[in-house]
């Protein structure tokens, strides 16, 4: 237990435009992973605390990219994950959708790929694409 190292980290909360600078005291285990988040300060609302905990255990991000379109008036459809997914899955998702082609018409919110990599989160269209 006493091998754990206590460390102070600083990063910005990105939940809202205020971008509070958080000061976070963490305890790292022997494997160098964050074992416990001991204290979060600098946040001006409870969302900062939640963000810090999430960020230090499994950072989550919304992934935005594009998917090829066939017979649409644009070559590419902008897409996003409906919710944030683990950051570590972003590269794998990009590989998964590189060869994907969706057919127009497409409406914003249409599901392009359901349950992305078993996350329970869908990949959805960000914009309408009309047929040619």
């Amino acid at each position: 237990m006493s091998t754990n190292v206590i460390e102070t980290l600083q990063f910005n909360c990105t939940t809202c435009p205020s971008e509070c600078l958080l000061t976070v005291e963490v305890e790292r285990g022997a494997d160098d992973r964050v074992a416990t988040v001991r204290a979060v300060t600098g946040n001006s609302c409870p969302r900062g605390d939640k963000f810090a905990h999430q960020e230090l255990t499994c950072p989550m991000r919304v992934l935005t990219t594009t998917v090829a379109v066939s017979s649409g008036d644009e070559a590419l459809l902008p897409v996003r994950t409906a919710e944030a997914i683990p950051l570590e899955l972003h590269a794998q998702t990009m590989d998964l959708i590189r060869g994907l082609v969706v057919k127009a018409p497409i409406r914003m919110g249409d599901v392009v790929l359901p349950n992305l990599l078993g996350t329970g989160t869908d990949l959805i269209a960000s914009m309408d694409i009309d047929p040619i």
Partner: protein
Amino acid sequence: MTETFDIAIVGAGITGCAIARQLARYDLSICVVEAANDIALGASKANGGLVHAGYDPAPGTVKAQVNARGCELYGTWAQELGFLFCRTGSMVLGFSDQDRAQLEQLQGNGLANGVPELAIIGAERIHELEPRASAQATCALWCPSTGYVDPFEVAIAAMENAVANGVTFVRSAPVETIEVAPGAGDRSGDGTARFTLVTPAGDVRCRYLINAAGNGAADISHMAGAEEFQMVWRQGNIVVLDKEPRALMPLYPVPTPVSKGVIVTGTVHGNTVITATAAVREAGDTQTYAGDVDALLSGARKLVPDLDTRRVVRAFAGGRPVIKGTNDFFIGQSAVVPGLFQAAGIQSPGVASAPAIAERMEQVLREAGVVLCQRGDWNPVRRAPDDFDRAPLARKEELIESDPTWGQIVCRCETVPEAEIVAAIRRRPGAVSVEGVKRRCRAGMGRCQSGFCQSRVVRILARELGCDPSEVPLEDDGSWLVEGPLKGVR
């Protein structure tokens, strides 16, 4: 190519294009061989575009003879070839009594060189002629015959006219070696080739060879076994500023021994050009330098104090093709290899002199015994392509009615619609690169420097040329812009 041409011209700069245009009126088969993938990619695109009047060269030099004559011919050339030419007049500004003495010397030169209507004027007249000229200027040499052009437009127009009259244009064909058949030159016209130009685009055979290779002129002369001379790369940086409500009259400082100094001038499209620094650098160096650009901007402010030098649209550089040991042009038949004609060392004032260099080259050929028979079907006129931005409203409507893509603006800064870009690609010889499109119809020439339109121009080029976007170059062969698709591919 199996055909043997009467004449091959190496180099499609403004000199080569002007000569091709001049000779196309005769019953000759002519081929222009260009190393790059387009016209005017060397010194001809990298200069200030001034049609200097001709008071600068020392009397008695070749320059002195062709400069004033070239400037005079520009009016006719512009009319016949349909390029924009503004004869605005110019002033060399003096700021002291010492300067005044120099201006008088220039005026004397000008008189000797046949430059018309030169006058030394005082401060009041200076500001009448160009209200933005420095208030510190106390005297000036006023020269009404000076003007300006887009130099690449002149070269392109001349070549289009030459091609329309039967001249063959071969691009992407750098001359690697020249084989010269033994003998004293072919003056009988029996059809045997004397020169074979070996290029990656194939061999070009000809009876007479004209060297108009600009900065490559010494190499061509050497390959043909003719005069050995060396080129000096006298590099110049140039800056283009955004458009002004009224284009500036060309304003010169009092010249230095090696250059005319930093000149401020308007352009045919209303931009301001600051031209040029002069520094001997390694051959082929077209880099811009921070020190040069600063020197240009500060030099320009001395002539036009209210110039907003933040509004830089483009900075570029080129090398003046100077022959080492002389500051003069070399136009004539080789003394070593008969049948080879040289137009070498065509540095400044090469643009101004081009029509007269062509005229002189014609005379040199005639004197060398080349048979020049006027063709009955020669057409001196090249109709200017439609320029949407400059067209009056009624003509704009007409164009859009004829083809809706005239109403599809691609380049916002210069108001260039798709149809105009397509026309630039389909002209003969047409554009094969993004910059080639720019030089023909100004798409991408404006203040955003193609930030908005480049990807659209790439698409149009790919469609028109029947190639993939990844094969569309920015400029010369090898200057690829994009690799290929990102999505929809495994």
